[in-house]
């Protein structure tokens, strides 16, 4: 049996892909184009698009990279929900019709390619990095900033964000307000605001607790529903609201960044741990 015969046998069904096409250079207005795609076991929506590009229409455009739910490039509006194309198998959609549109609430560059620049701009506005007053220590560290396991658990979930932007496409407040910062940047802001090592609360709060910040969220929950990494932006935003509320009454947690722990000098290795093998590649200093 040759390769194509094996593939023909593996085909489970044929599915109709309806894909939104838009070419800024062309005269055609945005429209849905139909493609018949043979579906095999384990085939994702991204695989389906690749099949179309390979066999039917090489001009179809979208953005993708890792094809394993890590990079967050292939966010699309698939059968009525924002999803990652690589993270959803066609058979799991339980439909013979797959309607794919670019993520809503973003401008369309071409076909299924959204313009995410607005998202990244808002993301940058919340200063998504550790801010320390002692910048010299940050630039040339003498040790680690202390953090307990429980302190880590308070924000680690929000650090799983891959910036795919699905939450912004799902959010009903983003749908009507261009100024609203939105679930992804607010979650990123809260991730650092709740980090015990951080000392940038004042700078970050100006954005997070502004009139277009956390209190524009009304807990529709769509962001958390569509998040492919379980980040739960709705939870982060409610926690930030409570913090803003408590601070408004002068009762919020005021803290300075955690202290620096110098590296442990005096230690003896456990006897049952074998020595590391000798280095096989010469080190730079040697």
């Amino acid at each position, binding site marked *: 049996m040759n390769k194509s015969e094996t593939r023909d046998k593996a085909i489970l069904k044929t599915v109709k892909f309806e894909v939104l096409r838009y070419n800024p250079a062309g005269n055609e207005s945005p429209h849905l184009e139909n493609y018949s795609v043979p579906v095999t076991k384990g085939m994702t929506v991204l695989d389906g698009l690749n099949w179309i590009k390979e066999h039917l229409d090489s001009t179809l455009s979208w953005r993708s990279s890792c094809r394993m739910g890590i990079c967050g490039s292939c966010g699309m509006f698939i059968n009525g929900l924002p999803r990652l194309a690589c993270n959803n198998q066609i058979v799991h959609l339980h439909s013979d019709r797959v309607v794919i549109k670019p993520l809503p609430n973003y401008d369309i560059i071409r076909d299924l390619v959204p313009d995410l620049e607005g998202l990244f701009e808002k993301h940058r506005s919340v200063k998504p990095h550790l801010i320390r007053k002692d910048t010299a220590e940050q630039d040339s560290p003498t040790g680690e900033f202390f953090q307990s396991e429980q302190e880590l658990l308070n924000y680690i979930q929000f650090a799983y964000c891959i910036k795919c932007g699905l939450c912004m496409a799902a959010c009903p407040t983003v749908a009507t307000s261009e100024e609203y910062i939105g679930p992804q940047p607010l979650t990123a802001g809260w991730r650092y605001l709740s980090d015990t090592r951080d000392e940038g609360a004042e700078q970050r709060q100006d954005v997070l607790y502004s009139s277009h910040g956390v209190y524009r969220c009304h807990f529709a*929950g769509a962001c958390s529903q569509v998040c492919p990494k379980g980040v739960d932006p709705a939870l982060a935003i*409610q926690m930030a609201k409570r913090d803003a509320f408590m601070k408004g009454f002068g009762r919020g947690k005021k803290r300075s960044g955690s202290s620096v722990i110098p590296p442990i000098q005096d230690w003896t290795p456990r006897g049952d741990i074998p020595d590391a093998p000798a280095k096989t590649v010469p080190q730079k200093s040697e």
Partner: protein
Amino acid sequence: MQQRLKNRLGLWGWLGGGRYGLDRYAYSLHRLTGLGILAYFIMHIFVTGQRVGGPENWDSTMAAFGSPLFKVGEFLVVLAFAFHAINGIRLILVELGWLIGKPGVPSFPYSYSTLRHKPVFIIFMVFAAALMIIGGVDFYFVMK
């Protein structure tokens, strides 16, 4: 830079629940009922303001608003109030960080705030329904 096509959903994105969860529908309904109650308040101020024009003016206004159409409209305000009040209390509690769980390490299948909050949501909606029924009985039978 080439021309970008605007794709912000606008009013439909705000109003349409689509394939999202119950909370999304509660979000839309909360805003709609809020607008409805606001419209009622404006109308209410206008109607009660007619008293300034004398008893005859007041009586004729009351007669105009006594039609079955306005009776149904008033009952809709009762329903809107019941939902908006109970859902509003739920939202205050949620916005104080209660009844939605705590953050942790995400592991598949993911648990998230609105999913954990669902039983609480249903309990609050049962309260709202009970308030609507009590309001309906009071409106149509007791106040007759």
